[in-house]
């Protein structure tokens, strides 16, 4: 299971790539593997104001449907519309083409409460 060290994580299985005050968000390799084949991703809308911990997206696999939570508060600036026709990217490239949305952060201090790769691996292992 891959957990890139340059990303930040939440124990609800979202990764965040920080670029200034914008984070790009997706779900981890562990999460996509646990879900199985992803068949649909319901994304938020650009312009939505979201708060840390809000359920803002849904990933459907053949087995289940899982909520995706906002890893930090802010405004949705971009969504990966390509997932509408190719949801399998979430399985194939969870840290690449499988990204889901970008948030312009309203409170940068929330980044400090995210966890690093090693801590996330411990969380995943415990599940």
């Amino acid at each position, binding site marked *: 299971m891959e957990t890139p060290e340059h990303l930040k994580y939440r124990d609800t299985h979202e990764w965040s790539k920080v670029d200034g005050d914008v984070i790009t968000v997706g779900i981890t390799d562990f999460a996509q593997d646990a879900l199985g084949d992803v*068949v649909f991703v319901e994304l938020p809308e650009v312009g939505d104001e979201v708060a840390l911990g809000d359920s803002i997206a849904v990933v459907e*696999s053949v087995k289940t*449907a899982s909520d995706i939570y906002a890893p930090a508060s802010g405004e949705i600036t971009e969504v990966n519309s390509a997932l509408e026709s190719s949801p399998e990217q979430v399985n194939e490239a969870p840290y690449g083409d499988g990204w889901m949305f970008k948030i312009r952060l309203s409170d940068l201090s929330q980044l400090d409460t995210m966890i690093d790769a090693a801590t996330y691996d411990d969380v995943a292992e415990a599940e």
Partner: protein
Amino acid sequence: MHYLPHTPEDIAHMLEVIGVDSIDALFADMPQALHNPNINVPAGLDEVSLLNHLRDLAAKNQTPTGGLLGGGTRQHFIPSVTPHLAMQSEFVTAYTPYQPEVAQGLLQATFEYQSMMAELTGLPISNASMYDGASSVAEAALLAVRQTKRKRVVVSTGVHPEAREVMATYLKPLDIAISEVNLEQLTTSTDVISNELGDDVACVIVQNPNFLGYLETMPTLAEATHDVGALFIAVVDPLSLAVLASPAEYGADIAVGDGQVLGNPTNFGGPSFGFMTVTDALLRQLPGRIVGETTDVDGKRAFVLTLQAREQHIRRSKAKSNICSNHQLAALMATVNMAALGPQGLVELATSSVRAAHTLANKLEASSLNVLRGTFFNEFVVQTNRPATDVRRLLAEHNIHAGVPVSPSYGLGDAIILAATELTQDDDIINLVDALSEIDANIDANQVDTPVEKVLEVAHD
């Protein structure tokens, strides 16, 4: 096998946890008179006596003939093959025949049902059926609210009054507003609808043919609806689609309706089923079960429940609907019936139904009865000189079951809805025209039958 899984110890434990002394204490809020009332049930009967008793009861039934009753359910021809196949015990005895991949026969029949409904309505996605026409209208409104994230529904009063009532029940606790738009003359006016429209409107719901039987200008209504980004919901008589333009042709986003006319009898107003078909764009929002076609491990064609992640056994409170069942057997009757009749049979059925209704209207007019003229399908309205319920009663005295009363809210005065189908014979028409002429003409002689107070009550209802 124990059908009651709770032991006395279980029950005692549960009562202790919730802090109640006894099971009876749970019902303390009920008036005392309702506790263990003395129900007067006679002693049991032996089989012969019971059969005789049931025969006596059954003999009191009056079975309407001639297909003259409309207003939501109608008698249509059901070939013998339909009940014969649909009542196979493999179909009938399965309670919830969804165990994925096991009940292949029923899953295949449901897949065929969906394919037929998609073909009739022109909309590509169908669910496995719903409870009835009214619940399908309510679910369609909920779908539109989910999809558009708007909270007002505009509905024409041409939609069946019972469907509007059920929808209001569904929407009230969700704080979704309903704007009812009255018919102008006999149909829905695009101008009046447009005045109600705004960017807070989730959908516009119009029935075609409408409750009174008349055809709506669906294309212009759909266009006006789409101009404000709302969804257009067509409530349709599926049999009419054999000859009328399909919802897809006039741009409807959702087609719903009652499927009774497709191969189901009219016992007690049912049993019935509702249907719902939608555009590709609304696939993820569709409530209810969907059967899909796939291949098994050996590459053979197989059927499965699909897209279940929308449903509440997986999605819990975020499911698209709390519907997790359907009216499978009634939908199966429709499936067999449509397959037996075929596309040409459906066209012939619909055409002769329309022809019979127009013959009836012409003959009523020739007898000086006041037929309300408009473009109608197989039902229409006749104004009467006395209250509609009296007309219906007097017709029943002639052994004619016809005349669904039109609510005073339509502003048409005393009026009844009449229908005709391919089952309507020349004799049925002649008898109805004669009886109605007599009833309507005798109004002066029988004026005392209708006290003034009652007339006023109806007029101000």
